[in-house]
């Protein structure tokens, strides 16, 4: 019977924590159904099952413990011939279920000891229960020392806050540090840049957006993503992974988009088949991906599928980005700010919006010549935005 293992949701992931099961034993599972939520160093990720069948048995309950990648979390009874086979003896290879969280103090639920009667309004008592405040430790400020709603709220606010947010930030920083250190240690980067006339793209985009309602508007970033995806079709040597000492090209173009998170850190989930999507479809996918990345509801496949990464720092005034490749990918593409610059068109100097496109390439996989062809292809695609 197939085991559902804690998946590796990124090159830098070594462990994770089970947050929630979304399927119960006995519930059917279709291929691609989200069945669990797993916390990684970077985000809470919705994890899919690629085995259709039925949730047979949960081996690990949600809890505070971090487990290594590959830990069996559940058993899934597969559909088809495999389901008819006798089930192998179940070996409890999973670590013991995590201890349930300690119960919150619910002092208010029990009468206080004689002689220590706490005067408290029913509303304040309910609030204390809801917030997990120990009424015995609250100083009442109402008449006769009665504990008021405000007293409970004040006590709740004074309680030590859960350490999850700073802990998450620390873990994310450590994960980024590990991945980037590995990249700089192992990947011999080369860097190229070119300045692209963004006039045609800007004019086309303005005209197109003028005719559409706000819900159908395109951002210039989606033109850049599509141009990169098409250029990777033209120069496929940059699209793929470095695995076991050699470059492995990917047939699909899944563009990882670097998304900065509120509060710090970043993730780079994948826009799948970006080369095949229309601009409208790609924009909706892009919008959905960024929104979910910031809300912490990304899917497992989105964290692992990217065949290249695109980063753009232009919105904060940066003119060019020379990024670090996210291993095991082969390249990273950067875009800077759109700026007006003198530009020669037909022998005359005119003001044009331009953007700097950069490439960080893995010299083990490609040479500067291929990289130059790629940037040239990006430029060509952006000169004909109507064909993107």
């Amino acid at each position, binding site marked *: 019977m197939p085991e559902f293992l804690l998946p590796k949701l990124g090159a830098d992931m070594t462990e994770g924590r089970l947050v929630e099961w979304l399927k119960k034993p006995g519930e059917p599972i279709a291929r691609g159904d989200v069945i669990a939520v797993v916390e990684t160093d970077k985000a809470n990720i919705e994890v899919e099952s690629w085995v259709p069948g039925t949730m047979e048995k949960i081996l690990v309950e949600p809890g505070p413990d971090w487990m290594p990648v590959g830990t069996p979390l559940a058993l899934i009874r597969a559909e088809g011939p495999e389901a008819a086979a006798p089930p192998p003896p179940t070996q409890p290879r999973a670590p013991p279920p995590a201890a349930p969280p300690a119960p919150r103090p619910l002092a208010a639920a029990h009468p206080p000891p004689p002689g220590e009667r706490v005067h408290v309004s029913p509303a304040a008592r309910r609030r204390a229960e809801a917030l997990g405040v120990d009424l015995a430790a609250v100083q009442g400020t109402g008449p006769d020392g009665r504990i008021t709603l405000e007293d409970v709220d004040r006590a709740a606010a004074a309680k030590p806050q859960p350490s999850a947010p700073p802990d998450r930030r620390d873990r994310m920083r450590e994960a980024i540090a590990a991945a980037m250190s590995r990249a700089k240690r192992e990947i011999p980067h080369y860097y190229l840049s070119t300045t692209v006339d963004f006039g045609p793209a800007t004019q086309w985009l303005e005209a197109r957006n003028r005719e559409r309602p*706000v*819900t159908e*508007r395109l951002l210039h970033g989606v033109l850049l993503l599509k141009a990169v995806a098409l250029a990777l079709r033209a120069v496929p040597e940059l699209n793929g992974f470095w695995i076991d000492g050699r470059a492995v090209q990917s047939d699909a173009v899944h563009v990882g988009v670097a998304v*900065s998170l*509120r509060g710090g850190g970043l993730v780079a989930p994948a826009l799948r088949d970006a080369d095949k999507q229309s601009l409208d479809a790609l924009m909706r996918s*892009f919008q959905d991906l960024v*929104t979910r990345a910031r809300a912490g509801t990304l899917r497992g496949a989105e964290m692992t599928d990217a065949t290249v990464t695109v980063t753009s720092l232009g*919105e904060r005034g940066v003119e060019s980005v020379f990024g670090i490749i996210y291993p095991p990918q082969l390249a990273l593409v950067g875009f800077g700010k759109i700026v007006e610059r003198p530009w020669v068109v037909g022998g005359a100097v005119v003001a044009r919006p331009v953007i700097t496109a950069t490439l960080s390439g893995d010299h083990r996989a490609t040479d500067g010549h291929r990289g130059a062809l790629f940037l040239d292809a990006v430029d060509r695609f952006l000169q004909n935005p109507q064909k993107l």
Partner: protein
Amino acid sequence: MTRDEIRTGVIAALAAVVPELEPGGLDPRVSLRDQLDIDSMDFLNFTIGLHKAFGVEIPETDARQLATLDGCVEYLAARLAARDRPSAA
């Protein structure tokens, strides 16, 4: 709709893209992008939120008028007044 009601609606649309928003700490005359570190995707989602909350179309060329909280309120008040004004028979 009063300006206070519009302001409340604008803040709600902002909070949808900036969950940690503290309305009391917002300077109504300073750029929202600069105060809240929002990017073009956040701003587009904010604009869509305004469109849905107030039922007015917001052309891309008007985006600059939405740069600050006060700007949003003034812009939407004008749009709503124009929409609700009885047309000449």
